[in-house]
């Protein structure tokens, strides 16, 4: 039944419906092996999308004072200090490494946020990406726990910051990476990818990116990089593959990513049927209550 619920193929749900307006599916390939952790992506994103500042709290967690993706953070650079060699081929590289990874919305092929959104605020765009329509979102918050990556969140502005990037009454709605939908429509690449000094964030047609990633994986494996792996590149994974996937140098959970994410609606079919059964039994149960001794 789940397929009839709209996860028929490897194609992003809702994308085909665009017919002639459909554009090639685009995404990000984030290659952490060249990420210098400069956070240009975080700032570029905020400058372009006019996202509010997110609090000035120092964490002491390496150089990461952003901590997680959220309503006001659509790119988040994770920092992991490890006592592990960068390479396993004993090239004399130091027994110390500093992993950096710019996290972002995965723009899943099968996107739970998109599926569960009751208003149609979350949609699949003609580019195969997933966006929240801010003029539609009514802040029901369903997509927030639905996302297996914890990407979306509701924006609460306690006090409007005295500093820029806060325009009008934006609180109460849910926000996330749009893959710079407006820029795409104008033929510009997303702000983060454009800013990235070392091309750790690569933007392009997904097929192309996957080929590039495969070549990259081959090269780095050859060079004996420790723990190198592609995360979200496989269209057969639990979310049908990511539109924005990653080259990691350790297990996903080390970066705060789920090791085997599954789109929640994958099991929606069985949920509906078990509900139907339960509902029926409810009726039966009530009826039973009347059968037997009568007063």
């Amino acid at each position, binding site marked *: 039944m789940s397929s009839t*619920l*709209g996860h028929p193929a490897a194609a992003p*749900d*809702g*994308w*085909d*419906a*665009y*017919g002639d*307006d459909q554009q090639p599916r685009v995404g990000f390939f984030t290659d952490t092996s060249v990420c210098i952790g*400069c*956070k*240009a992506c*975080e*700032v*570029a994103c905020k*400058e*372009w999308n006019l996202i509010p500042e997110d609090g000035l709290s120092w964490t002491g967690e390496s150089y990461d004072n952003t901590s997680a993706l959220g309503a006001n953070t659509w790119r988040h650079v994770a920092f992991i200090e490890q006592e592990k060699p960068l390479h396993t081929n004993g090239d004399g590289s130091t027994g110390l490494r500093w992993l950096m990874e710019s996290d972002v919305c995965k723009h899943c092929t099968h996107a739970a946020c*998109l*599926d569960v959104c009751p208003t*149609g*605020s979350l*949609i*699949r765009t*003609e580019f195969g990406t997933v*966006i929240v*329509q801010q*003029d*539609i979102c009514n802040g029901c918050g369903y997509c927030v726990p639905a996302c297996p990556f914890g990407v979306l969140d509701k924006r609460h502005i306690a006090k409007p910051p*005295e*500093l*820029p*990037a806060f325009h009008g009454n934006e609180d109460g709605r849910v926000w996330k990476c749009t893959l*710079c*939908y*407006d*820029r795409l*429509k*104008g033929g*510009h690449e997303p*702000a983060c990818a*454009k*800013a*990235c*000094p070392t091309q750790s964030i690569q933007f392009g047609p997904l097929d192309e990116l996957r080929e590039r990633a495969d070549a990259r994986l081959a090269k780095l494996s050859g060079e004996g990089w420790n723990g190198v792996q592609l995360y979200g590149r496989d269209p057969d994974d639990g979310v049908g593959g990511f539109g924005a996937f990653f080259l990691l140098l350790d297990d996903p959970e080390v970066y705060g990513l789920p090791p085997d994410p599954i789109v929640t609606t994958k099991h929606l079919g069985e949920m509906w049927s078990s509900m139907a059964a339960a509902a029926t039994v409810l009726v039966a149960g009530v009826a039973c209550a009347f059968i037997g001794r009568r007063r």
Partner: protein
Amino acid sequence: MALRTLIASWPAVRQLREGDAFARGPAAQSPRTRDLTPRIDHADRVVESVCPYCAVGCGQLVYVKDGAVDHIEGDPASPISRGRLCPKGQASKSLVESPLRETKVKYRRPYGTRWEELDLDTAMEMIADRIIETRAASWDYETETGAPANRTMAIGNLGGATLDNEENYLIKKLTVALGIVQVENQARI
């Protein structure tokens, strides 16, 4: 009639009509979303610039709208930066449009306890007078040992590494003529 168009525009209807059965695509698209365009496409003009932070010298494009800087991003044409910017360069727009920027002259009188307002012209006049007076009062034609000096040691000028070459040129030219030798910049730090 209006009702019909209203109903026709209802996504629940469109999702059937437009073959978007689960309303995850075009059917649920709002007019605003459909007509969205990037704001840089509406800039009044795009101005070539250079990042003001470090000395890498990244190319910048400044997008101007209604007399204000609307957005700044990297200039892809630059052979040095190839359109890329670091977090600081990327924040240049916040730098130049920051509400924290001072736009009025502030004046603190000797032993004063607060800033006062002062109009720019008066300030310039006062500064010119201060320089002339201090210079006159402290001028050395010679050193103690009788060597030529032609200078004042009572005035100094600091800064330059964040300024333009043309500005540094005027500073050095003017201070040489004024006999101000204590002219320095960040090259020492």
